[in-house]
């Protein structure tokens, strides 16, 4: 079968999709990507088939809390969906896929799949939706829905047919396990999709075998707040712990030689050497730590990170600290607590075992195959009755779905 992948041009979204693409290709399927070649190529390698949509740079988002979620939607998800729509439309016409795999927040893919009546799977790369962490704030969840309805009608689909493009009615692949999320209905919990990826060099010989190891990885949005946080972490760290910090070298000019600082690390090779990970609660790094049975100290900053941290704490695999205000003493106590109490590592290992059992990219590839088989076996009429081709074409002609708006 032919599978078209629509994702976001961010490592945390493209890497898991690439893991799935790799398994699909190994099972004999033809895989192509719709997106920016400029941004996807470095992450996907020279062999990936990329149906180019053109590139537009949307800034990575700062801020914290609800403000960060608002700006994620207004400055990234919505403008990116508008930008991507015509490109995905062209890609579907040119490639004629049997199935689409669409990142939960690459809304353009879901809308185009719906427009063509094609089966599609949602790939969940974030903790922001699955457990509905903001259900107590209808002001936020209702507003988010309004953004999606706006994209939907802007693309020429009828408002009364609105179906939330974050959730495929046919298959939702979530990269987590029940041990973290609890029961989630109607979703395939396949565990993290981890594939081969380029491993930057790392001085493994400088890891001191007589000390325990802390990996500090606060994400790629390095700013003053992160620099300040790193300073507090290192200030309180006991001598018995060696830190590896993922950060630009110039952000930590005065650290002792024993602290290893690198802007990029071979995460999958490094994690087995680590005793604890101090992170911001990004889904990928958190999942990769847990998959390796490594417990965590989490200092969430924005977006879905507080929810990821909540899940890890509830599962007993780590503790949460306050990113902005935790003192050196509090940070050191949190790290020491997780290192010294074997219950955290035991819980992390249990989650890791569940993740491996869930099957990851292999299970996901199998489910995408099954989706295609089910649809081609006759369920397609159910899907196709939702198509709105005439409305869409009319909208294009009238210019109401012109997508080149500026963010």
């Amino acid at each position, binding site marked *: 079968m032919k599978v078209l992948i629509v994702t976001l041009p961010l490592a945390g979204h493209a890497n898991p999709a690439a893991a799935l693409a790799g398994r699909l290709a190994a099972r004999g399927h033809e895989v192509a990507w719709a997106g920016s070649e400029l941004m996807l190529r470095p992450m996907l390698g020279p062999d990936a088939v990329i149906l180019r949509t053109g590139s537009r740079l949307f800034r990575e988002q700062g*801020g*914290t*809390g*609800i*403000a960060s979620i*608002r700006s994620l939607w207004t400055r990234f998800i919505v403008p990116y969906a508008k930008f991507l729509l015509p490109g995905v439309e062209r890609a579907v016409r040119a490639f004629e896929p049997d199935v689409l795999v669409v990142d939960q927040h690459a809304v353009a893919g879901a809308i185009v799949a719906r427009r063509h009546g094609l089966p599609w799977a949602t790939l969940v790369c974030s903790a922001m939706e699955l457990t509905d962490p903001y259900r*107590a*704030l*209808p*002001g*936020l969840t209702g*507003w988010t829905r309004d953004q999606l309805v706006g994209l939907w009608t802007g693309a020429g689909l009828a408002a009364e047919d609105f179906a939330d493009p974050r959730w495929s009615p046919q298959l939702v692949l979530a990269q987590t396990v029940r041990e973290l999320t609890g029961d989630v209905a109607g979703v395939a919990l396949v565990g993290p999709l981890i594939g081969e990826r380029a491993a930057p060099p790392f001085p493994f010989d400088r890891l001191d075998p007589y000390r325990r190891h802390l990996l500090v990885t606060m994400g790629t949005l390095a700013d003053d707040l992160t620099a300040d946080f790193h300073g507090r972490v290192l200030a309180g760290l006991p001598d018995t712990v060696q830190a590896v910090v993922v950060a630009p070298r110039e952000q930590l000019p005065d650290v002792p030689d024993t602290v290893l600082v690198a802007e990029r690390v071979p995460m999958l090779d490094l994690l087995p050497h680590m005793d604890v990970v101090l992170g911001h609660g990004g889904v990928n790094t958190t999942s990769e730590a847990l998959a390796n049975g490594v417990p965590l100290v989490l200092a*969430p900053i924005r977006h879905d990170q*507080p929810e990821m941290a*909540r899940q890890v704490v509830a599962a007993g695999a780590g503790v*949460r600290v*306050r*990113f*902005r*205000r935790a003192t050196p003493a509090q940070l050191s106590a949190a790290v020491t607590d997780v290192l010294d109490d074997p219950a955290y590592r035991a819980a992390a290992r249990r989650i890791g075992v569940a993740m491996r059992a869930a099957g990851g990219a292999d299970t996901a590839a199998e489910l995408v195959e099954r989706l295609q088989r089910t649809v081609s076996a006759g369920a397609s009429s159910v899907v196709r009755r939702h198509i709105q081709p005439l409305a869409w074409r009319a909208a294009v002609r009238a210019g109401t779905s012109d997508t080149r708006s500026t963010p």
Partner: protein
Amino acid sequence: MCNIDGHGSRYRFRVADRQLLTDITGMLAALTGADTVPADATLEGDLGLDSLDVADLAVRLRDRYDVDLVGFLATLDVDRLVDLTAAGLAEHVAAVAA
């Protein structure tokens, strides 16, 4: 109790409000470790309250004023959520506790 006239009543209420605002900013200062919290400080942006802090604040407000913070937040639209200040919170508490 002894409402002499509208002005008197309003005056007393304003004094009570000021006291309430002082109490709320004091509560937020204790929560965040700040020395002082200005009335116009936004809870999320300026004070950096995260979901843990909000849960903590909710307990304090319930215990002291019998105010349901989560219920209040549920009535706010997204912009008001982001822009909620110490004074805005005090205003709500005053309205509910009055």
